[in-house]
């Protein structure tokens, strides 16, 4: 098991370097002054010269790449033009907000989706089934940012149930993690965006769980469980759902890519100070080091969560051998 994880972590690190390389060359391949992507154009000439030497910008592309990779290994992603601070520092400040929102959304979606999907398959042909499919379908076809905008109009503007934007009521500033996230005010701000995120995620677990359940329910071991005289609930959740869950985990891992994309949109609409909103603002402000760094970190986050999903799968399915 440990070997398996070590091997997977190795592959993941290689992937992160490859993706970073790709993004590095994508920026450098553009016409115009290459220094503009690394060094703030508005700097004083002397300071500029220092940085040009620091990043090897007077040398060849290969020299620049070597500096870039060396910095990357040291978690140094350069300085943001806009904030004038290290990119890594800005990003680590933003990550908790994004992760909390995303994970809350996923818990909502997978909680409801897995149980709902199992129930839909169990009660096949029932009204509940078609209702579930229709809801999943509508939220799959509706752009997240639009659902977010509409929910703000309905729940914040008209009903005034939840705040419309941000993580905290304006005027409040917190320093430590506890001050920022561990209180009711934050929770109130979290509800609406995380429910919208949940609705965006829900189609995948709900529909896959249903299909996978339908398949599992026709398996012989389900009939055997009935023949053993087990109670319906036990058959449904302990035997059928447990097996049907496996494809849901796999699909969930593949879905992470679009989930992170969805975060970008949601954070923008809800002015949620996370990584996604930061990358949009960075590109709008031509803050290239920050955009590049945020992208690398987002890909890495996705790969890490992917790995977690894979390990979870291995734990759930005893047939997997850790090659």
């Amino acid at each position, binding site marked *: 098991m440990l070997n398996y994880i070590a091997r997977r972590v190795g592959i993941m690190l290689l992937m992160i370097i490859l993706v970073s390389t790709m993004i590095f060359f994508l920026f450098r391949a553009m016409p115009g002054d290459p220094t503009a992507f690394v060094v703030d154009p508005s700097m004083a000439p002397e300071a500029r010269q220092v940085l040009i030497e620091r990043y090897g910008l007077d040398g060849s592309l290969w020299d620049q790449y070597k500096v870039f990779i060396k910095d990357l290994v040291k978690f140094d992603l350069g300085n943001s033009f806009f904030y004038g601070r290290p990119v890594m520092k800005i990003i680590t400040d933003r990550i908790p907000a994004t992760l909390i929102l995303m994970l809350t959304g996923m818990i909502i979606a997978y909680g409801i989706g897995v149980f709902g999907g199992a129930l839909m398959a169990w009660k096949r042909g029932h009204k509940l089934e078609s209702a579930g499919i229709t809801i999943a379908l509508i939220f799959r076809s*509706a752009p997240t940012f*639009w659902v977010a905008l509409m929910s703000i*109009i309905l729940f914040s503007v008209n009903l005034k149930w939840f705040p419309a934007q941000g993580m905290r009521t304006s005027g409040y500033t917190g320093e430590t993690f506890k001050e920022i996230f561990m209180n009711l005010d934050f929770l109130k701000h979290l509800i609406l965006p995380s429910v919208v995120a949940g609705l965006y995620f829900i189609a995948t677990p709900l529909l896959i769980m249903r299909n996978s359940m339908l398949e599992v329910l026709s398996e012989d071991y389900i009939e055997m469980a009935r023949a053993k005289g087990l109670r319906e609930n036990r058959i449904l959740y302990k035997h059928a759902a447990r097996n049907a869950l496996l494809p849901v985990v796999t699909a969930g891992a593949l879905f992470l890519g679009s989930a992170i*994309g969805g975060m970008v949109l949601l954070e923008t609409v809800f002015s949620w100070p996370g990584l996604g909103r930061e990358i949009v603002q960075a590109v709008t402000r031509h803050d290239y080091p920050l955009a590049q760094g945020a992208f690398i970190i987002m890909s890495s986050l*996705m790969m890490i969560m*992917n790995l977690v999903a894979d390990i979870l799968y291995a734990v759930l399915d005893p047939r997997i051998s850790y090659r």
Partner: protein
Amino acid sequence: MVDAMNKPRSKTVKPKDKSNSISRLFLNNLKRDKLALIGVVILVIFLIIGVFSESLAPYDPSTRHYNEEGKIRRLEPPSKEHPFGTTDIGRDIFSQVILGTRTALIVGLLASFLVTFIGSTLGIISGYFGGKVDAIIMRIVDLFYAIPFIPFVIVLSAVLSPSIWNVILAVSLLSWRTVTRLVRSQVLSVVQRPFIKAARVSGAGHGRIMLKYVLPNVIPLIMLEMAFNINAAIMAEASIAFLGFGDPTKQSWGQILHINFVTGNSRNAWWWVASPGLAIVLLLVSVFFVSRALEEVVDPRLRGR
């Protein structure tokens, strides 16, 4: 089950016969599946709107409208003259939505075509040759799975100038991976069938075998993937445009919402928010119904599900 196994096999040798039977089965399906029929009708309406959008739109989308008193019709809710209301500077939202249809359709159709073209070409090559070629292509696929879509497109638009062609390019660049995976796995099983071996023995070249024998057997799957990718592409375009990285010269649904959002009117003008979004939902749902009906034809196991 027997049905599912035999159907494609008995028809593998006659590709023409096969595509005929698919369209016939699909039409039969429409008679049974009311939702798919509704989907087709809505889709046709969207296509007509897309083609004739200039003549169908009542006004130029950027004209500012004034009322009898000569004041700009700022943020007016839906009325007879402006069925979807007006924007903060008195523009007609209905005309904007009509014109946005074309952008959505162009991006949806072109990008999904490109995606399936790239994806299935690589998938067929990968599955047909196997070995090292397969391994290399599949590693590239893995790498592309590690790239988050929207952030990548945002970064890409930072270096490219915003235009719908770049949006199509970005969508195609990242979405081919799924098609490649699916097509490859089907090709792997097609290659095992006797008529491919027979063709090899009879000295047909690789290109010829792939085009004449392998391709016809994966066409149904490719068509299906194309249908599903239309939705993904339309959604991607809307998202990019909403974030403000779309083509500023083309009306699009995402851009209507972008302007609404950045001008700070997303909370007070529900009609401005609702109408383009509903257009997206309607188009995507109808495409989905049609592709689901297509899926039932392609994969007989799904029938009656």
